[in-house]
């Protein structure tokens, strides 16, 4: 029941994203975003990716157990990610001070978010083997 409820929430969120994308495209708001020709198209793409992921998770039927060990590892991985964010922010400030960073904010943030997720996943996997 819990899983069904969760899936409904996720489906609703994905549909809202797709609808937002369609509205933005219809109103012709936002151009050129992360190599997409509009923010609307990007949102539609993300919405469909989300729909696919939620459907796959729902079909697979695997019950994900979150026990105290995984919470412990997750907490440690979060701490490592937090330190990595501070380091990256510091390095970015120094680089920007030496030579102004001219890449678009959206591009920088997308790379930053991908980096954060990657650091979390890698540190989680390493800690999982150690603990």
């Amino acid at each position, binding site marked *: 029941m819990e899983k069904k409820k969760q899936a409904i929430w996720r489906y609703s969120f994905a549909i809202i994203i797709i609808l937002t994308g369609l509205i933005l495209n219809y109103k012709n708001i936002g151009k050129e975003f992360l190599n997409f020709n509009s923010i609307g198209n990007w949102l539609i793409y993300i919405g469909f990716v989300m729909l696919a992921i939620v459907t796959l998770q729902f079909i697979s039927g695997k019950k994900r157990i979150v026990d*105290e060990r995984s919470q412990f590892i997750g907490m440690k991985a979060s701490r490592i990610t937090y330190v990595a964010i501070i380091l990256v922010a510091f390095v970015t400030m120094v680089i920007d001070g030496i030579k102004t960073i001219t890449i678009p904010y959206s591009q920088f943030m997308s790379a930053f978010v991908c980096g954060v997720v990657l650091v979390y996943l890698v540190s989680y996997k390493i800690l999982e083997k150690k603990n």
Partner: protein
Amino acid sequence: MKTKITELRKKLKLTQEELATKVEVTRQTIISLEQGKYNPSLELAYKITKALKRKNVEEVFILN
């Protein structure tokens, strides 16, 4: 922390998966506990002791 989980589990003819299901954790957690890599919380230690049909936690977990 040393444990007698493997020994007691085998006596009861339980698999790691079965024990994990009984105490509501993943099989990986049981593996880590058996290898002494992870120290369980008091709650989990009690659950495992009960699942292995022992009365005292000290019969399953031994502090170094």
